[in-house]
């Protein structure tokens, strides 16, 4: 089993942001304080890190769902009690990021297409954006504010998104 020290993984700002989105502040705190070697029960972890037991459990199960943590179950032969001993598997972080990126790539591509295929108008008061057809149907008057719409130049937004989508696709080795 290839182990990766959490502090190595957590050095990367983007990886930190990703994990933070997944497990929140207490989860990050658990990763940072997770003892470097061995396997631990949720209760051991809660005690050694001073993080609330429920938060520890929640984080471990979220990480487990992403294959970033795993457990071994042992049964006490006298009491029949089950104990789950946890280890981190942050060596799976690349797979995890790649899978999540592949899952959202379609969304980004769809948005990119929408931005590049449409001409937009915007209400200067409330900021609501309309496609040309929507604006035309309303005589270029905002439905919320009765203000005359302005043309909205989305070239920079659209181009920036296109470039980033291309870089992600290239990075993932995907071709059209």
């Amino acid at each position: 089993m290839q182990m990766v020290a959490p502090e190595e993984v957590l050095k990367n700002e983007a990886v930190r942001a990703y994990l933070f989105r997944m497990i929140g502040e207490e989860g990050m705190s658990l990763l940072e304080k997770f003892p470097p070697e061995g396997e631990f029960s949720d209760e051991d972890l809660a005690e050694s890190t001073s993080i609330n037991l429920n938060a520890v459990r929640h984080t471990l199960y979220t990480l487990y769902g992403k294959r970033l943590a795993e457990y071994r179950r042992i049964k006490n032969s006298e009491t029949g009690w089950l104990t789950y001993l946890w280890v981190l598997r942050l060596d799976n972080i690349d797979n995890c990021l790649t899978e999540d990126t592949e899952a959202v790539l379609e969304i980004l591509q769809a948005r990119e297409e929408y931005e590049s295929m449409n001409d937009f108008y915007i209400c200067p008061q409330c900021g609501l954006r309309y496609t040309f057809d929507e604006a035309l149907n309303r005589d270029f008057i905002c439905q919320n504010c009765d203000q005359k719409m302005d043309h909205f130049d989305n070239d920079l937004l659209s181009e920036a998104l296109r470039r980033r989508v291309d870089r992600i696709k290239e990075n993932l080795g995907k071709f059209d």
Partner: protein
Amino acid sequence: MTEIEDEAIRLIQSTPEGILQSELWKLLNIDSRKCSRVVKKLIDTDMVDRLEYKSDGIKTYLLKAKKRAIDPGLLMASGELLPCICCEEECSIQDCPYLMDWMYQLAIDEFSEENSEN
């Protein structure tokens, strides 16, 4: 990358279970020797894995595209993570305000990168 290497990697990537080398040269319409050179290039550039495989008792290779790890920096714009990652909101691709904000950050990043290059 030559045109034929490009076509080869596309074919291999489009079949997640892999392609037999003995099939690939037929699909690419090239001879097996040329195919070996193309495959070697793809292995050397770490794009493909080659596994030994027996088909009807004949030894060939199964070619599988390597899954590449994403550069996580590509999910960031001005220090903000792409909002679609792990998003639990109902998705409205065309007018998601979080995605719109991120696109503004992205445009600022791209624009300032370009300015600093010039």
